[in-house]
């Protein structure tokens, strides 16, 4: 009998709590409407999956953006105030238009960090274009997003597309590692499949024999796949996907007795990869990334510690890119002379040149990064260490 009362009691309590939380939320997060003495408050929204299976990635990204905003506010050299707003699109193109429209409809929103996923970006971007609202994604890597037929005039990205990374990785594999038999495994995600496709076609061009396979992200059980690869005689495995799966995969490969090289992408270039794989399985793994070494500059190492302090966890995949994206937006806002409007920010972004912690952010006219250098990293003694730009490594 009494169990029903748990629920019966929960109803008023929950309703009360929702109301309280709602009030609290609007007073802190939605305070953008008021003009404070320091100047107008603008909102930078971050759109990505904040719930559901892909929430980890969305939260990594939005936390990165939030950190940038908080730091900019704290610095106190702005003529305006910034607010952060997380917008959940569940990474799903179905939900993305509503999320996008909620940002467009909020007149305080001055620019967007995101959307996180390519599908969601594709579904959202037309709304941003129409509203002349800049969106700077830190993670949507689908090359065709900047296809001229889309007419996405307010789209920018602080991450290289799959094509440059796939080509770079393939070159390195063929020319430096001289692998002859490569197993290319993707995680079935749009990102993984896209990258794998680029990699595979470039490897085939270089006459490397490639076996393709796909293990859906979230499988976690890689023992089977690993045994298959171990007995295939491949001398290199390239995994296109994220660290959450790359970790267990590398672990299983070692367990299955695979002796070749494990190589993966920027989605795997994350300290958690080493943790999840275990340091012995991760040791020697090569990681490609269109991002320069964050440890190399003071700003980057500050980011790592600040992030940890703010969110109680290590910065994850794309956190740094999102941090850069948000800071690029802020830099653009600073560069605006006169009133800061959405279109002014778009214009400013087109000519921005900002030194981020992952790269020099400078956009081509279609919103792609100007420089598409791909860098190589290697896991040494349990940490991911920087080897250098791939084209130099090949050349030298």
């Amino acid at each position, binding site marked *: 009998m*009494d169990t029903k009362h748990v629920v019966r009691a929960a109803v008023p309590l929950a309703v009360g709590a929702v109301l309280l939380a709602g009030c609290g939320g609007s007073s802190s997060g939605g305070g953008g409407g008021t003009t404070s003495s320091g100047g107008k408050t603008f909102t930078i929204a971050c759109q990505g999956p904040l719930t559901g299976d892909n929430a980890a990635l969305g939260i990594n990204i939005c936390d990165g953006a939030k950190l940038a905003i908080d730091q900019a506010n704290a610095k106190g050299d702005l003529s305006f105030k910034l607010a952060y707003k997380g917008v*959940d699109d569940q990474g799903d193109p179905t939900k993305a238009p509503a999320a996008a*429209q909620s940002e467009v409809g909020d007149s305080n929103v001055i620019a967007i960090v995101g959307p996180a996923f390519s599908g969601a970006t594709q579904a959202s971007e037309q709304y941003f274009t129409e509203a002349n609202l800049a969106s700077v994604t830190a993670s949507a890597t689908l090359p065709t997003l900047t296809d001229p037929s889309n007419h996405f005039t307010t789209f920018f990205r602080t991450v290289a597309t799959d094509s440059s990374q796939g080509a770079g990785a393939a070159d390195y594999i063929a020319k430096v590692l001289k692998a002859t038999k490569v197993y290319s495994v993707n995680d079935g995600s749009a990102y993984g499949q896209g990258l794998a496709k680029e990699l595979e076609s470039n490897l085939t061009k270089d006459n490397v024999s490639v076996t393709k396979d796909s293990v859906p992200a979230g499988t976690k059980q890689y023992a089977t796949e690993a045994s298959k690869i171990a007995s295939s005689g491949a001398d290199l495995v390239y995994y296109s996907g994220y660290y959450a799966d790359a970790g267990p995969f590398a672990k299983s490969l070692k367990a299955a007795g695979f002796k070749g090289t494990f190589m993966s992408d920027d989605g795997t270039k994350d300290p958690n990869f080493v943790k999840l794989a275990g340091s012995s399985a991760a040791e020697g793994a090569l990681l490609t990334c269109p991002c320069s070494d964050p440890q190399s500059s003071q700003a980057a190492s500050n980011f790592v510690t600040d992030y940890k302090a703010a969110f109680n966890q290590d910065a994850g995949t794309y956190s740094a890119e999102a941090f850069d994206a948000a800071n690029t937006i802020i830099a653009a806002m600073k560069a605006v002379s006169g009133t800061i409007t959405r279109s002014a920010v778009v214009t400013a972004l087109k000519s921005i040149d900002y030194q981020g912690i992952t790269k020099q952010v400078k956009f081509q006219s279609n919103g792609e990064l100007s420089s598409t250098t791909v860098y190589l990293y290697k896991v040494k003694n349990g940490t991911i260490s920087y080897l250098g730009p791939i084209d130099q490594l090949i050349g030298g």
Partner: protein
Amino acid sequence: MTTLSAVARRARWWNHARVRRIGAYVFAGIVVALVTGPGGSEGHYSNGLRHGLLAPRVIPFIVGGLVVWAAVELGGRQLYRVRPLVTTVVSGSQRRWQSPVVRLVSYGLLLVVAIVYPMHISEFWRVVAANEIAIYVLLAIGLNVVIGFAGLLDLGYIAFFAIGAYATAYFTGRLPIHAPFTLNPFLVIPLAIGLALISGVILGFPTLRLRGDYLAIVTLGFGEIVYEFAKNQQGITTGSAGVFNIPHFSIHLLDINYDWGLPSLPYYYVSLGFIVVVMFLFSRLENSRVGRAWTAIREDEVAAAATGVATLKYKLMAFAIGASTSGLAGVLFASKVGSITPDAFTLQYSILVLVLVIFGGMGSIAGVALGAAVLTWLPELLRTHVNPQNRFIYFGMLIIIMMIFRPQGLLPSRRRAREIRFAEAGLEGADALGPTPGSGLTS
């Protein structure tokens, strides 16, 4: 022989029902404290628990639970006094509802509201209305035929939605494999409906002989297979990257040239039109020979067969009709959003549509439409009121609460409400899935 130990147990003060309920209220308070409290993270995953449960923060929630307990226990009688009043009002309105004139007028008014109201809302809510509410309402109405009318548990329903959406992509020339001709998405509608219908029959024919739960898992499997196909056959479906730039609806007839572009309102009206038509057709169907045959099958398959109802044929029919509605929704969706990815067709969505149907009141077309609208609207409303990460926690809570207090749904069909009443009175078989779990137990 024995003194009644049950009686003895009851006599102890801490076993008193009222006292035991304190525990329930305190538990509820703690749960709410946890839900509204801060979250944790990978490095500090006990953070949320520590600050949610062990910190002084939890005290007001426990006190709140006790206050609610006291209010209910002491002031509960007042609530009971209100109850008869509520029931009279409700039953009175229900009685009036049965008058056809009242119903016609109310439906007319609702339609007017559905047409006029969206003209005065923000573009955000229009997007929600066109992209989500309209699509899910259509899906729910279709699944209602399968589960509400014929009593078949289908957990792979979203597969037909996918088939409709990918058919749109195919016939508008957006897939790597090309159709012999390209069409305006409008003209894809009949093709997609046909394709979904055929796949419904193909799936249903071998599986509809299976009993309730087995049917559920086989349909679930079908949904997963369609999903994996969409995701892995890159050469056919483009894989996870998805299909982009699916054209919008357009009309080019004589002098009329109209393009449905980005704005949501025109799409909303198209969807509304389809919804109204489908609701009208299905309500006719419900009160036809076919609908009665479905009810007969749902209530007693053996008796239905003995009365000459070709059970397999009617089940297939329900499956096919449900599937084709889903296919139609797929076309609307693909054309409106313009891009589809396999991740929009996972098992979770099949389950979600099922939840919408039951929540609204399965069997009742108006009920499922309402349920779908409410449950789709709610997370969007919560978007602005709670931490986005918490939205679906409340969503889950709401579903449990609803099932406990109103298992028949928001607006159940009269037939369905009766079935549930019988089941609650201890008569068997509230739906085709058999009797209540653990039924026959009154202890």
